[in-house]
């Protein structure tokens, strides 16, 4: 991180653009592929490097902003962070660049465009990729326990929980559960449990609307109650199961809430060749009708205002997110491009035929929500997380009271 805030190297001149990607292997391979192609044909060269090592890429980016050593282009910015940087004036408003608006309108849905438009009316991020959160399940366990259909509603999920809950080694303690989700109170864990369930129940409802808390409703309360009951009835474990073995792979869990990254992980580490799994949407209340929405976990591309040639930076970014770029993203990283009609577009069909598990995510991509544009969204999630812990995990508050307290605290925060 210290290096991120140090002076830029001398070999970076006006004709070279510095491009940082995330440091996971797939994205490095993806970036190297496109940088090589670009550099072979263009006068302005791209210098690529993965984001420097740090506790998190967010911290590294922050350090580089403070030290004014930001790259020209950064691919992997969490959508929730963009508003803060935009308000600080360190990002280039991309809608002022030639060809941006037309291109992005052709690629993304109106809903996505609305989501990424900042409060000042400008667009500071290129919607790039998504990892929709869905329910992964173990097919063998499902049939072994006589579950004829997937537990889609809260009630069905409870019933599955009752059937599956077991003490396999007879030590008096449960060691098989219907599911597991992180119990840690840190804010980002709520992006994998409360938030996608809330989006599912509310058909893509907002957490913040008109600068006020918008989650104090039947859906927010319902999700807290659903999760609280899962812990009370011991259908979920309160222990940090992730600290040891992966309990989905050891077949102690029927389901988990995960994104498409889990496909490669399970395929790589599964302990039996006949281990079969797939994905289905998040659980919803029984009265819910229609398609089930979820959280898209969007990561986007930004251009920092230290960039001397933003137009050329955009021209390069276009190569990453045109049809060919998006297909490469699928093939190399197993992540979905944030592109409309992904499920039906002919160009991508051969990929989905070869990767049927990804097809499920492509279908889900029609029903997604990202993050509300709010400068203090991390604090909002932290407040929800505190109440989540008190209510869901430790049963110290009723769901109604916990959600009400969270909404009050969020409103106080937004007032200041």
């Amino acid at each position, binding site marked *: 991180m210290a290096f991120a805030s140090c002076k830029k190297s001398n070999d970076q001149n006006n004709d070279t653009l510095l491009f940082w990607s995330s440091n996971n292997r797939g994205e490095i391979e993806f970036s190297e592929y496109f940088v090589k192609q670009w550099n072979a044909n263009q006068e302005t060269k791209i210098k690529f490097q993965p984001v420097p090592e740090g506790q998190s890429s967010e*911290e590294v980016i*922050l350090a580089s*902003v*403070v030290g004014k050593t930001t790259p020209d282009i950064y691919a992997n910015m969490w959508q929730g962070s963009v508003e*803060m*940087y935009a*308000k*600080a*004036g*360190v990002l280039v408003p991309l809608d002022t660049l030639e060809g941006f608006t037309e291109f992005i309108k052709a690629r993304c849905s109106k809903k996505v465009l609305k989501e990424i438009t900042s409060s000042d009316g400008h667009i500071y991020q290129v919607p790039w990729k998504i990892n929709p959160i869905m329910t992964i399940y173990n097919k063998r366990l499902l049939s072994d326990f006589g579950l004829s259909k997937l537990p889609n509603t809260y009630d069905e999920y409870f019933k599955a929980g009752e059937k599956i809950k077991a003490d396999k080694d007879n*030590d*008096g*303690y*449960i*060691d098989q559960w219907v599911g597991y989700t992180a*119990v*840690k*109170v*840190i*804010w980002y864990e709520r992006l994998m449990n409360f938030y996608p369930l809330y989006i599912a129940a509310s058909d893509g409802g907002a957490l913040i609307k008109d600068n006020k808390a918008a989650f104090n409703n039947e859906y927010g309360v319902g999700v807290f109650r659903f999760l609280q009951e899962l812990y009370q009835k011991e259908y979920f*474990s*309160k*222990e*940090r*199961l992730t*600290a*040891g073995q992966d309990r989905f792979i050891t077949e102690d869990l029927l389901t988990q809430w995960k994104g498409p990254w889990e496909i490669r992980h399970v395929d790589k580490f599964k302990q039996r060749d006949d281990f079969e799994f797939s994905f289905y949407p998040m659980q919803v209340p029984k009265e819910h009708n229609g398609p089930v929405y979820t959280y898209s976990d969007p990561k986007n591309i930004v251009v920092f205002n230290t960039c001397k040639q933003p137009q050329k930076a955009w021209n390069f970014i276009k190569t990453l997110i045109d049809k060919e770029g998006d297909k490469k993203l699928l093939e190399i990283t197993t992540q979905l491009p944030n592109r409309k009609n992904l499920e039906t577009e002919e160009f991508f069909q051969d990929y989905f035929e070869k990767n049927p598990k990804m097809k499920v995510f492509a279908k889900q991509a029609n029903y997604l929500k990202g993050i509300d544009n709010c400068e*203090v969204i*991390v*604090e909002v999630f*932290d407040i929800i997380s*505190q109440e989540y*812990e*008190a209510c869901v*995990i*430790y049963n*110290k508050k009723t769901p109604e009271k916990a959600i009400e307290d969270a909404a009050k605290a969020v409103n106080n925060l937004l007032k200041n």
Partner: protein
Amino acid sequence: MQMNKKWLPYILVSPYILHFIVFVAFPVLFSLVLTFHEWNIISPMKYTGLSNYTKMFNDRMFWKSLTNTFKFLIIHIPLQIVVSLALAEFLNQNIKMKGFFRAAFFLPVIVSGVVVTILWQQLFGFDSGLFNRMLISIGFEKVGWLIDPKIAMGSIAIMATWKNVGLYVILFLVGLQTVPVHYYEAASIEGASHWQKFRKITLPMINPTIFMVVILSTIGGFSLFIEPYIMTGGGPLSSTMSSVLYIYKQAFQYFHMGYSVTLGFFFAMLILGVVVIQKKYIEQGDD
């Protein structure tokens, strides 16, 4: 030559002075200025007067974090002293493999705090942790070492004691070896028991070491961070939210730099106050 002699002391102290200005004086003064501002690192600073201070006095979570830190100290310091003194006393006897034991007790001190914390997290596991497995095997109930709000801080204190005990064992050992042997010989001739010799000779003689251990443990305990950060994230129900963890959260999670620095200043003053009181109390005991 005269000129050189005049300037030589200044030249010799200049590296320290420079280091002090850059790494101590400037950050402290800058932080003091920051306590009167709101600043998220990337936007310009905004003057807010005393609002950070008034916010601090009304911030329930900060006071809870202070209470948690004191709870940790109340468990950790006595435990640290008793365990390390007992081990030092053991090592001060004529036992075999003394060198091995010294090294073994000191080993956790040099192991990274993160590694130790992750290791203990496994040991404290509710369903699969070694401690609970042992309890079950002898017919006891499982304990929510890190998931029970009443117990979690105690568990962290046990771990922190294990991690640091080796350092204090060495300090006590040095203290014990400075006690003249003829005091014990005279006491033995007078018929004093082991316990009497320990109370009447050892403890008074190693009082300066005890003072040092108390001060070091207090300052170390006040800076409790890695353990709750990794093991519990400040939970369950904020029961392990230490003051330093809370200050870190304000600074690097919410980017409230001005506010976090205000908390930091207050906390530093508090540590200073506690150490001064401890010093006076122990010195009174000496008299």
